[in-house]
């Protein structure tokens, strides 16, 4: 368990780990239901990045204003697992600085205790989202 996990992500991790496996799935479903809608026009045409690691059409976009970063994601309702992963990252990374996002351990998805609940194969999608978010943050810094 990484001691350096920022507060938002650490509390999500702790919430998952406090539950039995079937309840972890229910919590993932709650996240899925609560993926914030992205109002039309928030993200410019062509600025959505498709997460190829996911089995469903999920797109992420990172908006930067100075040191503040907002992570946005969309995924269809018929892909609730993917929506849940996206929602965890959107909520967990909220309010973080660039550097904090870049410092997020790449194995964060594996710290949620979901391997046995959703399978390793499916968790890869979340790892893919995280590194794409970090890459977008990185490239926006270098502008």
């Amino acid at each position, binding site marked *: 368990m990484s001691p350096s996990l920022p507060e938002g992500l650490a509390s999500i991790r702790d919430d998952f780990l406090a539950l039995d496996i079937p309840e972890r*799935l*229910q919590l*993932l*479903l709650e996240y*899925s239901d609560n993926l914030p809608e992205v109002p039309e026009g928030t993200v410019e045409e062509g600025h959505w990045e498709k997460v*190829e*690691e*996911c*089995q*469903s*059409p999920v797109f992420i976009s990172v908006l930067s204003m100075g040191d503040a970063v907002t992570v946005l994601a969309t995924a269809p*309702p*018929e*892909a*609730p*697992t*993917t929506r*849940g992963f996206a929602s965890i990252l959107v909520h967990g990374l909220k309010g973080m600085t660039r550097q904090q996002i870049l410092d997020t351990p790449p194995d964060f998805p594996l710290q949620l205790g979901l391997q*046995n*609940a*959703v*399978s390793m*194969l*499916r968790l*890869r*999608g979340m790892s*893919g989202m995280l590194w794409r978010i970090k890459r977008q943050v990185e490239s926006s810094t270098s502008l």
Partner: protein
Amino acid sequence: MTIPPDSSPQLSGYAHPERLVTTDWLADNLGTSGLRVIESNEDILLYDTGHITGAIKIDWHTELNDPVIRDYVDGEGFSALMERKGISREDTVVIYGDKSNWWAAYALWVFTLFGHPDVRLLNGGRDAWISEGRELTREIPAEKPTDYPVIERHDGEIRAFKEDVLSHLGKPLIDVRSPEEYSGERTHMPAYPEEGALRGGHIPTARSIPWARAAKEDGTFKSAEDLAELYIAQQGFDPGAEVITYCRIGERSSHTWFVMKYLLGFESVKNYDGSWTEWGSAVRVPIHTGDQPGEVS
């Protein structure tokens, strides 16, 4: 069989219409004693967002696989799973799922490894049910544990291992993946994650017949005539021949396995579940790249 089969004329042309039910039949039979409905999806949470009333969830990844060995659960594991899910050996089981029933067909194939006597697929799967505006619920049915005997798994008839495929080369072998995976341009489905095969291509001599060619736009199966045209007339496969199907991990090829075995009535059809994730990384097995089947070396 516990519950009479669906006698819909839509199904009557198939070799084994008793293995398939229509959405109308299922809607009419919901709640019948001895009927258990199972949802099996690629997305593990989809069931929880809404499912057919009374349906229970079985997940291929986390429930039908052995957690340690790359294999399915054994007789005791299957029996325990059935008891937990409230399924008796005598029950008529109807399975449906997302993605044109890939995972539902995979689950049905695993049920067949254990010889569950009456297991059927819902034609068109979850999408057909939803597109017809039929009811879904988030209510999880109350558990009612049952007794299910410990049945030894029988891999011989419908499952092929790598060695079986090696000695089968030259006989009908069907690669149901996308053309790009078949040719070797990519090792995974378009828009799907990389799932770890070292090389791209296909098993030498395998014909490319993507799984979706057996399905209509709405996800239901094509008619018996159209299927016979595709697999028998165009490919020249003899229904008496031994056939092996494969894909990436065996889920899409379960769909084609179902088509060949139950809809066309081929006598011997096996699914190679190791599929490309095994073959594409295995030591000392031949592969072929490009859009031609290639020859046995």
